[in-house]
């Protein structure tokens, strides 16, 4: 199964880059590849992952662990309950990050943990410190993950669906924290999510993936106001917004493509209203159509 096929994207320094796409399209695999955290059954067939000019694929596991993960690039994983260690308390897990990346001093580390818990708006930091993952609510676990990642002080942050379990007000506060980090510390963020509202709220640039490939990349305003890939257009239209009735929800017809035997040519063609003969035959390449706007579709000019 080809989970990723020719995926190229660039996250600039100090940029919040949104990555969006249907479930199973390869977003998590993309981020896991970047950090060398793929399952054993995964094979990387080609390509490069350049970080500050160094190809991460050429580094040894030991170097990745010691010098890259945490130090340079940190990640919030999609599933808090499986990413936290059930036998350590929340505080102990954050302290580990602090001790590794910030301070060796026991008392100071302790204080920094409480600061981090406070920063992610957890009530009763002292109480939460002592709690084991199973004693926390979904949103609390997710905030522990966020605190662990913030404690790393790294330069690039990969956040895979970091707010799915948060209520809107805490989510808004978290997004603010990210924006501040971006502004003050020039942090770069690759933000993976299904939530178009969150994308529109904080991202500068957005990449849309479909079936293991890049469909479109553009600045956030163009993605929302001038989408040129039929899939992006469908995605924008299926945002619930203020619909009063479930039946009004729009969906993109058809199903997510199978990656074992993907459709020929453009992988979106079986579901695409613009598809012509050529779409079935030949894969469209990612075309540079405007300043920072790239799209992989033969008929992008007709998409409105």
């Amino acid at each position, binding site marked *: 199964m080809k989970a990723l096929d020719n995926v190229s994207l660039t996250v600039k320094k100090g940029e919040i880059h949104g990555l969006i796409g249907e*479930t199973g399209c390869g977003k998590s695999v993309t981020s896991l590849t970047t950090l060398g955290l793929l399952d054993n059954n995964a094979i990387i067939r080609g390509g490069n992952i350049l970080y500050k000019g160094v190809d991460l694929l050429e580094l040894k596991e030991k170097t990745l662990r010691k010098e890259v993960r945490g130090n340079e690039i940190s990640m919030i994983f999609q599933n808090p309950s499986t990413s936290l260690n059930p036998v350590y308390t929340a505080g102990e897990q954050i302290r580990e990050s602090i001790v590794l990346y910030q301070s060796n001093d026991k008392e100071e580390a302790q204080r920094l943990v409480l600061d981090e818990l406070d920063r992610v708006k957890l009530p009763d930091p002292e109480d939460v410190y002592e709690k084991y993952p199973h004693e926390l609510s979904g949103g609390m676990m997710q905030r522990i993950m966020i605190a662990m990642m913030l404690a790393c002080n790294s330069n690039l942050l990969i956040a895979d669906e970091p707010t799915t379990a948060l209520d809107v007000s805490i989510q808004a506060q978290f997004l603010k924290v990210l924006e501040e980090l971006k502004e003050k510390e020039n942090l770069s963020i690759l933000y993976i999510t299904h939530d178009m509202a969150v994308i529109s709220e904080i991202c500068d640039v957005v990449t849309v993936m479909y079936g293991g490939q890049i469909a479109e990349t553009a600045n956030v305003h163009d993605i929302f106001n001038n989408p040129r890939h039929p899939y992006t257009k469908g995605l924008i239209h299926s945002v619930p917004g203020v619909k009063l009735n479930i039946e009004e929800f729009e969906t993109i017809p058809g199903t997510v493509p199978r990656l074992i035997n993907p459709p020929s040519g453009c992988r979106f063609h079986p579901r695409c209203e613009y598809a012509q003969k050529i779409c079935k035959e030949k894969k469209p390449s990612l075309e540079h159509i405007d300043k920072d706007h790239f799209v992989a579709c033969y008929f992008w000019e007709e998409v409105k």
Partner: protein
Amino acid sequence: MNIVETQNLKKFFQSKKGTVKAVNGVSLNVIKGETLGIVGESGCGKTTLGRTILKLIKPTSGNIFFDEKHLFDLKLNPRKAKDILDNDGIDPKLRKSFEKNKYGLSADASVSKKGPNSWRIDDDRSTYLVKGEENSMKVYSVKDITDIDDKEMRKHRKKMNIVFQDPVSALNPQMTVYDHLNRPLVIHNMVSSEDEKLRKMVDILNTMGLKAEHLIRYPHELSGGQKQRVCIARALCLEPDFLVLDEPTSALDVSVQSKILKLLDRAKDKFDVSYMFISHNINLVRAISDRLGVMYLGKLVEIGETSDVFQNPKHPYTKGLFKSVPQPDPDKRVKAPLTGEVPSPVNPPKGCAFSPRCPHSKAVCERENPDLIEAYGRKIACHIFGKENF
């Protein structure tokens, strides 16, 4: 009629720093065939409420009733009936009214008051609820599942189920999708042959947008969204009457999410299932639920018809919550998040739990905890906005 009703339900946890009052006196009902949406801040007790209702964890106190059935109307003038129920317990008139309708009350029957307009009658066979509704008194039979043991509960379990917030921990990494669907189908005798079983499995997977080939996959071979669809398929395959959906679509992209919501909505009518739908996605809750309950720190602060609550939210927390909803439009990055510290469930603020963050708080708010009372055709717990004559 209600599929589920809770009365003053509480669930406390012990922690090192004290008692966490995760669910602190919640009385609500889920009407047969409806979707009750539940929203509220992270950690306010939504998941705990769902798990307690299904008795996956033992309630600290309160009652949970399941599967209400209307039996008859009390043949007593409501005023009189109220009087009898309040003061005289099992009065001969009450007994007669039951007998006329072929429900004899046994000798040891007893009455207890459960709310301003509701009473409970227990005898050695059944539990009855008597409710005053406008100008009549109605008698219902219910199953009180509060204190039944696990064995007894297992019989109901098929009828009430939950889809968890986090699909990953809900699936066993050692088991394939087939195994996950197989277990409930076999335990509850839902199928008579391997053939029928496979057909049923594939059918339910298809409706969830998955395919037969997924049967042999292990959880780590599925994407986040695929896992959640397996969880929903597993819950629906038992054809339950009541489903708690705890953030069922937060791991799904908008298109698949819309599809699944439509499907859940249709399943509701087709199988007569009722939902309690917990979500942080306010726009989604708005579209899918008939009524909406807003929780804050273990308590309901507002509950009513979804459209009413949205058009005219009354509780200051509800208002703040709706204002924090992000809009899918990069040109409208206006944020009005609720300010202030999230309160501690171990040391909740005195009086109204929302008072330290509430822009309208008055002295009374810091002193007394407001009750959830009827106003504007819904129920509101607020000293300032919870009364119609304000």
